[in-house]
């Protein structure tokens, strides 16, 4: 190839811009293609990555949530796990089958939920010693649909492990400069913030006690469009794009 020549100052500059991520659209695609085909250019990009990387040392480490490793562990399983599912997980699996069978339009949601089930913790990890059961302990499910009745997300709530899982049927990026926020609407009460919906539109979380309490009673979940980072008022300010009530059975 062209290994004997040295990079022109313009190319060296382009390598820096590409490594730092300053380029848009076409410029970026061209630089990426160049890095894939021109070893000299690729090496300068790689050197810039190394030069800039020490900035990352300024960021304070933060302990990740426990369940993050569990998901990695599952996704990188060497052999197929044959651990028996606990009752709730089995019940959710059954629901996935029911969803597949009966709601044609929602197959993608069922598939998304099936994927999310892979993230469930093994039985040994799951239920913290639960307080005396006060209410519903069977998992609950909500289909969050648009106002046209089109199912967009599926939520499952496991009152035993106090986990809430939300998965979108399809990619649903928020409009530029906005985020999707998940709300809980208690019967006859005002909306409570649950979480920001990540860009992947797929999340699982351990819910705080006040939210768990409301979820146990059965509530409506909704997703609204908010300014980036979430509603500034603590209440939904943008349009609700999907909502649905949690149900058992």
């Amino acid at each position, binding site marked *: 190839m062209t290994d004997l020549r040295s990079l022109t100052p313009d190319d060296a500059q382009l390598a820096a811009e590409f490594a730092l991520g300053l380029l848009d659209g076409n410029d970026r695609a061209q630089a990426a293609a160049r890095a894939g085909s021109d070893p000299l250019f690729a090496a300068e990009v790689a050197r810039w990555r190394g030069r800039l990387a020490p900035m990352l040392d300024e960021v304070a480490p933060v*302990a990740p949530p426990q369940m993050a490793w569990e998901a990695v562990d599952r996704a990188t399983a060497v052999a197929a796990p044959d651990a028996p599912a606990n009752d709730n997980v089995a019940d959710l699996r059954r629901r996935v089958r029911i969803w597949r069978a009966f709601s044609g339009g929602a197959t993608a949601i069922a598939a998304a939920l099936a994927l999310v089930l892979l993230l469930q913790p093994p039985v040994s990890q799951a239920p913290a010693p639960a307080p005396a059961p006060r209410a519903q302990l069977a998992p609950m499910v909500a289909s969050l649909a648009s106002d046209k009745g089109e199912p967009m997300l599926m939520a499952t709530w496991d009152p035993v492990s106090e986990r809430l899982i939300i998965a979108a049927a399809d990619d649903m990026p928020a409009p530029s400069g906005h985020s999707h926020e998940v709300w809980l609407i208690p019967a006859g009460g005002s909306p409570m913030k649950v979480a920001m*919906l990540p860009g992947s539109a797929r999340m699982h979380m351990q819910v705080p006690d006040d939210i768990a309490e409301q979820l146990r009673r059965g509530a409506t979940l909704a997703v609204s469009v908010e300014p980036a980072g979430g509603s500034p008022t603590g209440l939904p300010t943008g349009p609700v794009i999907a909502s649905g009530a949690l149900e058992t059975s």
Partner: protein
Amino acid sequence: MTHCDPVAAGRIVAGGAGVIFPHPRAAGFLFPPAKRWGMNARMDGKATIAASADKEPAELLAAIARGDKAALSRLYRLTASRLYGICLHMLRNEAEAEDALQDIYVTVWRKAALFDSTKASGQTWLGVLARNKAVDRLRRRTLPTAPVEQAEQIADDGPSALDVIEAAEDGARLSHCLDELEERQRGLIRTAFFEGVTYSDLANREDVPLGTMKSWIRRGLMRLRGCLER
């Protein structure tokens, strides 16, 4: 430019995340002492890392490339706090940072063979991977509704995205060389690095013509390289 200051940014993360995800388990680590390591601290840290801790990630990555699952688990225990800190700092959302973290280690599992211990330390390679994943997510956030393939294309820097070459003195010199830049240049480079924003984003933010923004940053980058290679 407060958004470039890691101390201020740490505060934003803590406050924002606290409101969004107020579960009790999180409370303990929502307010990390977001410290800015001075040059001395960094040099000390680097020496320690080179001596012991960093040899290990490199060896573990080699073992992972051979399919050693226990090595992945050990690498996670050793490095997850650092990488999660980076994700949280850049994404400012716990759920998304957690997703990114999972994505990082799944990628490590699949692509550890791309790590070359003669070119960079394990910690540096992992840090670059973490930043790549966070930048991908930041970019996807700002995309208008677009077909999946297009989003993938925009997020992808190609197969060489994990090539990293580190000079032995990079860690010690970078903060010194950044300090030599004009404050504005330094701030823009830091913002681009941590917020995954492009020339046009920065030009809009600062309300200057695109050409002006490009020449500010280009001058900064070339000066930075000059200093690093001195």
